[in-house]
């Protein structure tokens, strides 16, 4: 089967699954799956850039997605003037002090050598750390003391929602630059562990730095690019149109909003997909694949492997950041505790491997397919378990346990699918070429 036929077939399967969900479980659920599926497809596209194009093993996807989420808070929420007045300047000064310390440390590291370097660095870092804390702590406490139940943070910039998505990408790209600068020279599995750690640290920051993201108190009520359902239901023009479609206003408004998100996300996805396709087929894309397939040979041909790796690591992470910002916009809230590595890092990897690493269409369709499965495995598992439990004697403890555990079928299924694909179709459903 040619690749084009595979892509069309897989796209048809995904379409049938989503439309089928619409008929069986209602269009609301179908559109919910579609929207998150589109976001997942963008994440998969980002990981595919890194792994499929360049062979970089990034298991810190969760961190970049969360940074995107942070961006949508920082861009769209209104600023809290009292908090800025109380400690804004102090927080900014402390952050600048921290950055200056690190810059000075790097400069010292380059200029000095031997024992002098070690002692100078140690002294600088200790002094910098103490100074940073002296400036930062009072400012932070002042910010967090302002109306902690409602705000207790600095707020955002109050800019339009759609601006948050590219900013999410920029934030993730910035983090990727720092990580890449330190960790990209390492071997592949060291890079994996390093990115795994970075992602955990980013989540810890979001959970603990209340002045920045309200921590586990969450930020809710993020502005959205589309009208609220409630407002639509009171808009006479919309009610008239809903009547014209022959749907009741509540259903019409929810579907209208979800469709709106779907269109927005699809536009972003298509844009990124076109860019990724152009990149893949450009001389740059060929160079990337050459580096992936044989680093030594590419280096001998004069390619700067480390720089190219850094470049694509930043690009891929930025794409994940964009997806993260979109997801937070869709949810309407940032809940740092909800970022789990299995869901936001390893599931995206399953999407890429199953879809076909190295093939953008494969990654995108894999993202949609695996997301559909991730959502649907739970009801299917529950139905299966009820079937088994029905065969057991009434009130048996095992039957109860099976029903309770059906929710955990997800992870098991994803593992089995990943292993089956790796074993019998290691290049994924849509191979690279």
């Amino acid at each position: 089967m040619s690749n084009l036929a595979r892509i069309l077939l897989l796209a048809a399967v995904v379409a049938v699954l989503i439309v089928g969900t619409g008929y069986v479980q209602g269009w609301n659920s179908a559109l919910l799956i579609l929207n998150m599926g589109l976001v997942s497809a963008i994440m998969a596209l980002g990981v595919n850039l890194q792994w499929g194009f360049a062979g970089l093993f990034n298991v810190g996807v969760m961190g970049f997605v969360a940074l995107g989420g942070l961006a949508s808070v920082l861009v769209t929420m209104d600023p809290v003037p009292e908090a800025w007045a109380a400690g804004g300047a102090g927080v900014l000064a402390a952050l600048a002090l921290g950055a200056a310390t690190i810059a000075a440390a790097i400069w010292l590291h380059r200029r000095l050598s031997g024992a002098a370097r070690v002692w100078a660095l140690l002294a600088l870092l200790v002094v910098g750390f103490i100074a940073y804390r002296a400036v930062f702590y009072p400012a932070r406490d002042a910010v967090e003391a302002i109306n902690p139940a409602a705000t207790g943070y600095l707020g955002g910039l109050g800019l339009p929602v759609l601006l948050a998505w590219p900013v999410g990408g920029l934030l993730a790209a910035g983090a990727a630059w720092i990580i890449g600068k330190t960790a990209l020279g390492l071997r592949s599995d060291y890079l994996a562990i390093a990115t795994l750690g970075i992602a955990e640290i980013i989540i810890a920051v979001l959970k603990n730095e209340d002045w920045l993201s309200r921590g586990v108190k969450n930020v809710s009520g993020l502005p959205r690019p589309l009208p609220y359902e409630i407002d639509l239901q009171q808009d006479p023009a919309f009610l008239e149109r809903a009547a014209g479609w022959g749907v009741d206003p509540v259903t019409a408004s929810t579907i209208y909003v979800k469709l709106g998100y779907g269109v927005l996300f699809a536009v972003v996805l298509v844009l990124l997909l076109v860019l990724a396709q152009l990149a893949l087929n450009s001389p740059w894309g060929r160079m990337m694949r050459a580096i992936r397939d044989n680093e030594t040979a590419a280096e001998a041909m004069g390619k700067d492997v480390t720089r190219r790796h850094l470049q694509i690591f930043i690009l891929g992470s930025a794409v994940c950041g964009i997806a993260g910002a979109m997801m937070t916009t869709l949810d309407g809230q940032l809940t740092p505790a909800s970022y789990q590595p299995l869901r936001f890092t390893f599931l995206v990897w399953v999407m890429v491997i199953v879809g076909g690493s190295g093939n953008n269409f494969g990654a995108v369709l894999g993202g949609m397919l695996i997301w559909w499965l991730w959502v649907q495995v739970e009801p299917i598992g529950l139905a299966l378990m009820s079937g088994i439990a029905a065969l057991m004697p009434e009130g048996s403890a095992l039957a109860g346990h099976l029903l309770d555990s059906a929710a955990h079928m997800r992870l098991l299924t994803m593992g089995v699918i990943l292993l089956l694909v790796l074993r019998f179709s290691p290049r994924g459903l849509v191979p690279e070429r």
Partner: protein
Amino acid sequence: MDALNALVALTNFVIIPATAYGAQLALGALGVTLIYGILRFSNFAHGDTMAAGTTATILFTWALQAAGVSLGPLPTALLALPLGIAVAGLLLLGTDRVVYRFYRARKAAPVILVIVSMGVMFIYNGLVRFVIGVDDQNFADGTRFLISARDFRDMTGLEEGLALKSTQVITIVTAVVVVALLFWFLNRTRTGKSMRAFSDNEDLALLSGINPEKVVTVTWLIVAALATVAGTLYGLDKSFKPFTYFQLLLPIFASAIVGGLGSPLGAIAGGFLIAFAEVTVTYPLKKILGYLMPESLEPDGLVQLLSTDYKFAVSFVILIVVLLFRPTGLFRGQSV
């Protein structure tokens, strides 16, 4: 007196907990390092292997407790441990036959095996949640304290108390025994020597007639034992929660890499280094400094360098620093 108080506080809050945690990390890191040395890949499923072995141990512990069997002052889990190890061994050998052997036969690239281990991680994680759920499970019984803080205060007349939990002592003793057995096995027995030979140079080992399948089987069994012991000790000392075990992956890998992947001695050193760094940096040192410094200089804050939620950052920073300045780890591990 103040110096003694400071010493007791330091021992109570930093040295004892860090030693126990370090022993648990070291056992975990030994498993990672053995898999890396013999099978040549980073096993992402290791945290969940620990969780699976511990789950089996917990189930047997409950069965024993229900049957009225107990070890008196010692936790019943120690009696269930061999059964848990057996279950973990069967699980790992089964996984090897069904999953890993295929890729070994094809000499797949290490990074493919890492991705495969991600799939295994999902499956183990699902299995553990399926069997025992996601909640905290408490299975410790027996005496709780060898020395309680109050007894110590009464005994010595110091202001500071020193509590020694029995699980901490059991952790350290068990870890010493297990590590001694492991090193005896690796250095003195024929199978152990063939394992080391296989790890040093696979081709030469094959030429001299070492059976690779036997080496691999023995490795998985040892890993099962190490992972189950590490997981059970951690669960006894703190508590068992599947997600915590998944998160242990990071400090465990950091320990193994810092020590030098493939080097058992390095894994132990790395485990203690990471544990001591984590506990020292996240513990509020005010109490200890308060005894040592004159009153005028006493610190105002808690002198907690980082909040406990940032403990991952500690293992991570150590990892990055070691990798940047000594890429093969402190004990010169392998590098593929």
